[in-house]
C-alpha cells in the first residue's frame, strides 16, 4: 500500500528531524558560548602555554571584511567547481531525438 508506506516515511522523517531540531535549538540557546575555532581554542592555546605564539600569516587577509569576502569567494568557487564536476560525472547525456530521424 503506497499510502501507508508514504505515511510511514513521513513518520520516520519526523522522528529524526524533530529531536534534531529540539536538540539544536536547546543547545544553541544556552548562553553564552564563544564558538571559537578548535584550532584557536586548543592548538594555539596549548602552544601559548608552552611559549610558542602563532605568528601573523605570511599573506594577511584578516583585515576588516576581507576574510569574509575570501571565504564567500572560496565557497562560491568551490561550490561551482563541485557542482560542475558532479554534473559532468552523473549528468544524463542528451541523446539525439529518434523521431526526427524516422521522418
Amino acid at each position, binding site marked *: 500500500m503506497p499510502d501507508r508506506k508514504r505515511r510511514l516515511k513521513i513518520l520516520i522523517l519526523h522522528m529524526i528531524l524533530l529531536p534534531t531540531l529540539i536538540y539544536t535549538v536547546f543547545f544553541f540557546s544556552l548562553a553564552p558560548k564563544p564558538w571559537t575555532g578548535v584550532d584557536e581554542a586548543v592548538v594555539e592555546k596549548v602552544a601559548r602555554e608552552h611559549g610558542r605564539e602563532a605568528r601573523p*600569516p605570511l599573506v594577511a587577509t584578516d583585515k576588516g571584511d576581507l576574510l569574509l569576502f575570501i571565504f564567500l569567494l572560496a565557497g562560491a568557487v568551490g561550490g561551482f567547481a563541485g557542482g560542475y564536476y*558532479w554534473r559532468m560525472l*552523473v549528468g544524463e547525456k542528451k541523446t539525439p531525438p529518434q523521431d526526427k530521424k524516422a521522418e
Partner: protein
Amino acid sequence: MHISEGILPLGWATLWFALALPFVAIGCRELKKLSQVDLAMKPLVGLLAAVVFIISCMPIPVPTAGTCSHPCGTAISAVLVGPFVSVLISTVALLIQALVMAHGGLTTLGADIVSMGIVGSFTGYAVFKVLRRFGTSLGVAAFCAGVLTDWATYMTTSLELASGIRGSEPFLPLFTKIMIAFIPTQLPLGLLEGAMTAGMVTLLARKRPDLLVRMRLLPNTSCSPL
C-alpha cells in the same frame, strides 16, 4: 587541525615537510597514471578536490562543546580515488587555505599534510578496505572510514603539536592532554564526517556504479551495490 604559522619549531616543521614530500610526488604520478587509463577520473578528482577544500575549511558549530571545528573530507577522496591521489588533493586544499585564508600556516603546511593528507587518507582507505573484505556493506564501511579518518587526523595533530612544543616536558602527558582537549569537538564531528562519507559513496554507487567497479570498490557482477 590546522596548525598556525610559527607554532612548530623550524626543525620539526622541516621534518614534517620531508615526510610529506614523497607522498605528494607519488600522488602526482598516480593521478597522471589514473587519468591516462580512465577519462572519467579527471572530473572525479576535480569534484573531490572541491569537496575536500570546502569540507576542510567549513567551521561547524558543535553545541556540546561550544566551539567550531571542521571535518576533513579525506576519507571520501581516499576511498574513491586511492590514498596517494587523496594526499595530493589535500595538499592543494591546504595550500590554498594557508595562502589566502590564513587557515593553517605555510611553514606548518608539511605537518598539516601529514595529519590530514597522509594519516587521514591512509586510515580511511585501510578501514574501508578491511571492512569490505569482511563483507561489510558499502555504506557502513564508508561511515567507519570517515569516523576513523577524522579521529586519526586529530590524533596526529596532537602528536605533531606535543612533539614540537614540549621542550623538556615529557611527551606522553602533553600528547594525552591535547588529545583530550579535542574530544568534545571531534567526537561528534567524526560521526558527521562518517555520515558525509557514507552519503557520498552510496550516492555515487547509485548514480555511477561503473566508476566504483573500475576503482575496484564494487565487484564487477554486482547488481545491488548497497
